[in-house]
């Protein structure tokens, strides 16, 4: 495993570099928007990756509620954290594209608002996990994640069923895309998916190690020599 990770990291870095080259140089320039349209090659793959991560978080949360599996709990935590990072990219690159194209940074359009709500739900999920010390935290977080996941299809299908300012879906929806642009989009999605998988893997290993250390320290505190425990009781008796 220790040897596989660096190899995969190098391959992912190469794929990301190639995807960047394709996005900036190979992809044709869009007729009306010009070069600003190339933001699409980072914005859309980031959104799809975030949706996939939040969906995995949903499945892991359900598995945790059924089996109380520690692994499922870690997978849920990791995918929520990395998903929030990708969702942040979506919320930052979207307004940067909107400013020159729409003339405004932000509008309270249905899709934009739902994406912001999605981000806020998962940020609150992470805040809950970080600051709650109750033994029920993983259970509460799993329930919150299930409610949060309901927002994912709402975000995705909002442009299918409602009239919004956000562009129509280019695949399977009302819009269309040049095959060369689609090719570049897919390469970027593959690159960002590999990158997300690697980051999740690192974060998973870190969390497993963190929990092992915490358990060892807790065990050490329990098995502490009696002398150090009696110090407390002596103080009580003296008082």
């Amino acid at each position: 495993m220790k040897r596989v990770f660096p190899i995969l990291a190098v391959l992912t870095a190469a794929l990301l570099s190639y995807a960047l080259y394709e996005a900036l140089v190979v992809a044709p320039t869009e007729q009306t928007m010009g070069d600003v349209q190339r933001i699409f090659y980072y914005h859309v793959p980031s959104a799809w990756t975030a949706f996939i991560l939040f969906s995995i978080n949903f499945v892991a949360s359900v598995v945790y509620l059924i089996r109380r599996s520690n692994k499922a709990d870690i997978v849920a935590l990791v995918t929520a954290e990395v998903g929030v990072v990708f969702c942040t990219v979506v919320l930052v690159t979207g307004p940067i594209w909107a400013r020159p194209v729409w003339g405004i940074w932000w509008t309270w359009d249905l899709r934009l608002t739902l994406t912001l709500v999605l981000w806020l739900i998962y940020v609150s999920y992470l805040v809950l996990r970080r600051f709650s010390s109750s033994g029920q935290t993983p259970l509460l977080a799993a329930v919150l994640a299930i409610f949060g996941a309901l927002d994912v299809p709402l975000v995705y299908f909002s442009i299918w069923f409602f009239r919004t300012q956000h562009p129509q879906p280019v695949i399977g929806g009302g819009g269309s895309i040049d095959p060369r642009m689609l090719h570049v989009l897919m390469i970027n999605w593959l690159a960002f998916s590999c990158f997300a998988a690697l980051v999740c893997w690192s974060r998973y290993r870190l969390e497993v190690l963190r929990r092992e250390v915490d358990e060892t320290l807790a065990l050490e505190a329990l098995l502490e020599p009696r002398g150090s425990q009696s110090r407390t009781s002596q103080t009580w008796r003296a008082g």
Partner: protein
Amino acid sequence: MSYLYAAYIATWAIHVAYLSTLLRRYIRLRNEIAEFKGREER
């Protein structure tokens, strides 16, 4: 063109910031493990 570069730079700035928090957490954990091992040896 500046908007395009701004978007790409912002994307990588967000990813690098997250990766650096992971690295910081890993270093803190490694120090805790080293401290624990040192206590065990004593």
